[in-house]
């Protein structure tokens, strides 16, 4: 089994690319792989708590919590979040807050890395 680290620099909640990252992570974990997710730039929106699930509108909080329970490590870029007005108490519980060195360390120790850019 290997380790996959995904860097999500992609767009806001509701983004197809964030959906893809979450679904790919779940598939990898279900196959026994270790997964790390780095949320950066607008991707930090994915880590905000109290997302309202609306019909036909993709939200990520439920999926994120499920991944955390499965052992996926998710870390939010603290500076990116703060710059967007997201405070740490507003984050989904279990998500780490750290700086770019967290992502670099995970990349260094991963078998595969996928960086999903902004839209």
């Amino acid at each position, binding site marked *: 089994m*290997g380790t*996959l680290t995904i860097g999500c620099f992609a767009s806001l909640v509701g983004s*197809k*690319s964030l959906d*893809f990252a979450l*679904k*790919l992570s*779940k*598939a*990898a974990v*279900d*196959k026994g*792989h270790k997964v790390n997710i780095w949320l950066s730039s607008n991707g930090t929106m994915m880590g905000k708590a109290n997302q309202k699930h609306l019909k036909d509108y993709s939200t990520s909080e439920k999926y994120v919590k499920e991944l955390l329970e499965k052992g996926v490590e998710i870390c939010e870029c603290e500076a990116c979040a703060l710059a967007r007005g997201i405070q740490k108490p507003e984050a989904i519980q279990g998500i780490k807050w750290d700086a770019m060195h967290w992502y670099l360390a995970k990349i260094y120790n991963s*078998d*595969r*890395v*996928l*960086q*999903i*850019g902004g839209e």
Partner: protein
Amino acid sequence: MKLGVFVNDYKTVTETVGRLTAEKLGLIFIQNGVFHATIKENGKSSYLLDKSANFYVLAEDLATRGLTDADVDKRVKVVNYGDVVDLIFNEYEQIIWI
């Protein structure tokens, strides 16, 4: 190098992807990239399918767009998320997102 490429758009990324070369190249069509596997403009398939590469398309993104396996070019293999994980770990050393 064995390179896997996620292609997530139909119009904007074609030229860039078209220039990529690798010892082993895999193009994984996702999101609006699935149209490379399905659309024929003026009777011609996407020119990406003429590349020397392996082609895959994500079933869920086909279904989201009302497409089925029957719409997919014969050169392209329809895969699910689990298959994509296997491609990442078993078939390609480097994975990029375009």
